[in-house]
């Protein structure tokens, strides 16, 4: 299990780093897919099988496809990409600047009290249990989020339609 966890985390971080560093937008989008799939794998390790599938279907299957579609649609030429002359310098100072914060976070993590963790019960995280939980305990937030999504959807349609003369 540990090896799988390490591998997945490695790929997730690698994808994230590549996303920030790459010059071409398509490469960034592709690295993001790598991160998302690795994250999905981490969800699967936590026996959240529904989240695992949804992560792949929604993020990798739909959203990033849209990203890549738009990037290809714009068809940015190599010459039109922004020049990043001081990229390495910025990166170097960025890393230096973040080191103290990382140190603090790591220290905080190690200072946390240890707790006996129990294995999740059978059927944890599968669709049925998740749905029951959502519709029994968390009904109001669930409905509120649906309304929020609906508002966003209608907003997109309103912005997207042609102006009627």
């Amino acid at each position, binding site marked *: 299990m540990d090896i799988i966890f390490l591998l997945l985390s490695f790929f997730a971080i690698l994808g994230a780093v590549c996303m920030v560093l790459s010059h071409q937008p398509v490469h960034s989008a592709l690295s993001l897919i790598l991160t998302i799939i690795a994250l999905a794998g981490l969800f699967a390790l936590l026996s959240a099988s529904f989240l695992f599938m949804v992560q792949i*279907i929604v993020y990798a*299957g739909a959203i990033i496809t849209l990203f890549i579609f738009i990037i*290809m649609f714009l068809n940015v030429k190599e010459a039109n990409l922004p020049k990043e002359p001081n990229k390495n310098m910025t990166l170097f100072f960025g890393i230096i600047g973040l080191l103290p914060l990382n140190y603090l976070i790591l220290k905080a993590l190690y200072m946390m009290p240890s707790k006996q963790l129990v294995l999740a019960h059978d059927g944890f995280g599968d669709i049925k249990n998740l749905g029951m939980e959502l519709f029994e305990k968390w009904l109001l937030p669930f409905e509120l989020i649906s309304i929020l999504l609906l508002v966003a959807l209608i907003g997109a349609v309103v912005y997207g339609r042609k102006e009627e003369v």
Partner: protein
Amino acid sequence: MNSISVTVVIINIILAVLFSLGAAPILVWIERRVAGFIQDRMGPNRCHIKGIRLGGIIQSFADMLKLVFKEDFEANGIKQSFFFSLAPVIVFCSAFLTFMVMPFADDLKIGEQVFRMQGLPIDLGVLWFLAFAGLSVYGIMLGGWASNNKYSLLGSMRAGAQVISYEAAMGLSLVSVLITYGSIHLVDIVNFQGQLLFGFIPAWGIVVQPLAALIFIITAFAEANRTPFDIAEGESELVGGFHTEYSAMRFGLFFVGEYVAMSASSALIVTLFLGGYHLPWLNTHFLQQNISWVFVFLMIAIPCVSYIFSQWMFKNNRWLEVDNIRNRESKLLFKIIVGINVLIIVGLGLFLAFGIGENGTNIATAMIQVVTFAVKLMLMNFIFVWVRWTLPRFRYDQLQDLGWKILMPLAIANIVLTATIVVVFGA
């Protein structure tokens, strides 16, 4: 892990590979012969090994050999060589993975152990299919983009837009199906379809959910990039679309991946709407109860079918000269058919005489179901091929209109209708 479970797992993997990868040459053969038939010509039938033609199947193997040994050419304009090679791999792998969750037979019970008869024993079912079918479009988009060619880029953008539009309708049509069956596990879904509706109609998905079946089959055509939705290739407008620059085995992977994806779509359609591995009116329980009668029926039916087939073969695969290659092949095949028949009859007779016990009954049932599944899969694949050579290609705007303005509202209406009926009458 004892030896039985290892054996069953290995058999499952072999079956999954056979149904997906192994089906590719047969599907290519079906495609060409059916195309020939529809266009009133013969299609490839001359390729042979020592006189064995098998109606042209050998042509597919010759074709595969050609693809493997061709020069793997890469145009100078291709700057992203890594992504260029990665693209066909993505298409092929995701197509192959989608097939891994299709159940070929009901859960097999040997002694105390219960085995799932699928390539990967996980119960994510439909979701797994959706996830990896969605990933395969990256291969197409990446291939077109890395080719550094306007036609390829256009093809891959068309593919992307098409998959995004049709995935929405596909997901929504699946929701109503899942409400009816009350489960996402494909085995549960198939077992639901083993029941009878009003006592005499098999409760297949296509009877219970006709609208969802229609929408799903249409969107599955679009997902598999097959005509009438193959604008991503569009050879009359875009040369070859996303695979214009590909040659040899990198093209071969795209080519095989398309057939594997088609086979996986067919498998899901069969599982969701056409009763999966169930014979109509004969569900697993019934088969297990009446296994002796099934054997008797098989002992009578198989020779009859073989006889009719041999007559057909002698009538069609012959030539005036006695020593012609066709006549020799027919004679050889006839001998093989007789041999198989004798083996089957003797084997089944022995089983009937000595009885085969509970485990034997379960295994025999599973075998019958695997064969049923294979036959249904091939029939569905045939429909894919039939549609491809019958319908013309959609124009791009027609395709988007169909996806968003017709299929999507229909699917949503179907969900509301299904949910209401399920709540009122109780599933």
